[in-house]
């Protein structure tokens, strides 16, 4: 769970969010049971912050994004965007949203789609033309800007959806699987644009399964599992930390008991210690202490844990 101390810069505030999808009794088709998609989730996102929403399929990531976008209403709790309740016009005025599967009118060209959404945003004709040209250049849309959307590939739709989401220079950007279908160049462009947006003060929430991509953008994650936020663990911070593997001649158990705090020990055997490190600068001190304490060290290896490892660890712990 990520909380921000600075209330003034908080742009998204979710308090005790619970979302239950009601079941229904089918007359002709089968009935379905109620599903609790999110349970008591609290989160605050501040300006210039990128949050990565991660979790297995069905964890509630899209539901969480939809709640923030005001597309659905919470069963309990509340969401505010820029200080206003989600779905209010004020909240929507600073919002950019990109769904997982963007859909557009097949008969409209990309230019017509941008003009349509620009008009919905209340932009003038001139402003829309300027934004269209800018988006077309930034997102490499020149080739297909005047082609009807019915023939678009997933990547083209993603680029167009991103252009639509960015039309009003949003303060809050909600992206659901933004790199779906994008080619490597598109992914790099997307990353650069998101970094620029973050630097300009926008808050960005990204739901993605591409953990490697997320890692290049942020070190703030929310791991959702069956509708609950799972702590990433205070022992290991993704992207910075890892596990230190120390090989010894013998007496591993005694040394670990004597010299290390239990919360730091990840694994112990007679000839090997696995120690959690939150910062790689800790490594020399740990090795020094072990040596001073009588450990006969034969090898040291720092294995940095990336977000993929954290994801797998958390996932495996729960399965």
């Amino acid at each position, binding site marked *: 769970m990520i909380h921000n101390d600075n209330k003034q810069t908080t742009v998204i505030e979710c308090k005790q969010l619970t979302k239950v999808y009601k079941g229904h009794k089918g007359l002709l088709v089968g009935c379905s049971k109620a599903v609790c998609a999110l349970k008591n989730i609290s989160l605050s996102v501040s300006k210039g912050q990128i949050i990565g929403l991660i979790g297995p399929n069905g964890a509630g990531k*899209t539901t969480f994004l*939809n709640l923030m*976008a*005001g*597309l*659905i*209403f919470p069963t309990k709790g509340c969401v505010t965007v820029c200080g206003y309740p989600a779905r209010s*016009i*004020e909240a*929507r*005025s600073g*919002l*950019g*949203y*990109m*769904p*997982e*599967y*963007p*859909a*557009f*009118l097949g*008969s*409209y060209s990309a230019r017509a789609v941008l*003009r*349509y*959404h620009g*008009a*919905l*945003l*209340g*932009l*003038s*004709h001139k402003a829309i033309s300027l934004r269209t040209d800018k988006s077309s250049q930034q997102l490499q849309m020149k080739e297909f800007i005047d082609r009807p959307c019915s023939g678009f590939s997933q990547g083209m739709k993603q680029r167009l*959806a991103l252009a*639509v*989401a960015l039309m*009003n220079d949003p303060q809050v950007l909600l992206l*659901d699987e933004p790199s779906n279908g994008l080619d490597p160049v598109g992914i790099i462009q997307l990353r650069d644009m998101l970094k620029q947006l973050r630097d300009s003060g926008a808050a960005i929430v990204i739901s993605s399964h591409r953990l490697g991509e997320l890692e290049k953008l942020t070190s703030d994650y929310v791991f959702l599992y069956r509708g609950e936020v799972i702590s990433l663990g205070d022992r290991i911070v993704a992207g910075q930390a890892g596990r230190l593997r120390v090989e010894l001649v013998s007496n591993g158990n005694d040394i670990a008991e004597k010299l290390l705090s239990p919360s730091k020990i990840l694994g112990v055997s007679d000839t090997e210690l696995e120690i959690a490190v939150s910062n790689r600068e800790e490594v020399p001190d740990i090795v020094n202490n072990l040596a001073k304490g009588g450990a006969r060290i034969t090898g040291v290896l720092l294995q940095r844990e990336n977000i993929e490892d954290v994801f797998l660890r958390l996932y495996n712990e729960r399965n």
Partner: protein
Amino acid sequence: MRAYELIKETFCKKRYILIIHLSWLILCGIFCCFFSMSASEFGRFIFLWGGCFLALALSAGIFGDDISSGRICIIVTKPFWLGELYIYRLLGLSLQAAVDFILVWCIIFILHILMRKVSTDGLALWLFASWLLFNTCAALSTSLSVVVERAYNALILLVVIVTAFIVADPLMEYLKEQAETGVLVSFTRFACPPFKMLYEFAGGEYDKNILTVVRFSLAKSVACVVHSLILTVVYSVVGIVLLSRRQFSCRRD
């Protein structure tokens, strides 16, 4: 700009909308050329096809398609009152129908000059009544489209209307004679689409009648027009409320 785009969208939404308009005009032209019909007979034809079925054809899936494709999810995150989305789309349908009815009148007028086959006497009133009926049916269909996915709104309404004509109409005639069912009859008469009232209005049956409400006297035909407009507004308000309270899912089917 927003109004223009939303109104234009109702015409460009589907390729078949142009086909519907052309078919409608061609159908009217064919009826005019090949069948000997009086102005009132032709008026009835326009009233049924233009007022009712054209409304269902044009408004099919007007929100339902967007909801089922997930397109609505991007639209509703834009900062504007969702009622505008409804109103301008309905206005778009209404304008299309108005253009259609004007074009039909022009076709008939030209054919009348060239062939002297169809008289234009009283046809304007039929066209006006058809347009009023179109608006009411379109508002009902659009509101239904907010809660029914895809284009099933038009299909459901079509089934209901056909059933009403076949089953409910004789039943209502019977119920009218029963004193206890007055409320039900009044509800059906005033809350459901005003097929019968507008039909009688266009047929000129209300011309000399005066409806007295407390101290005010209104020509019955004016009351009929006002009633039809009120119904359109009521159906629209229901649709706007439903749209504002609806939850939208981004799943694609």
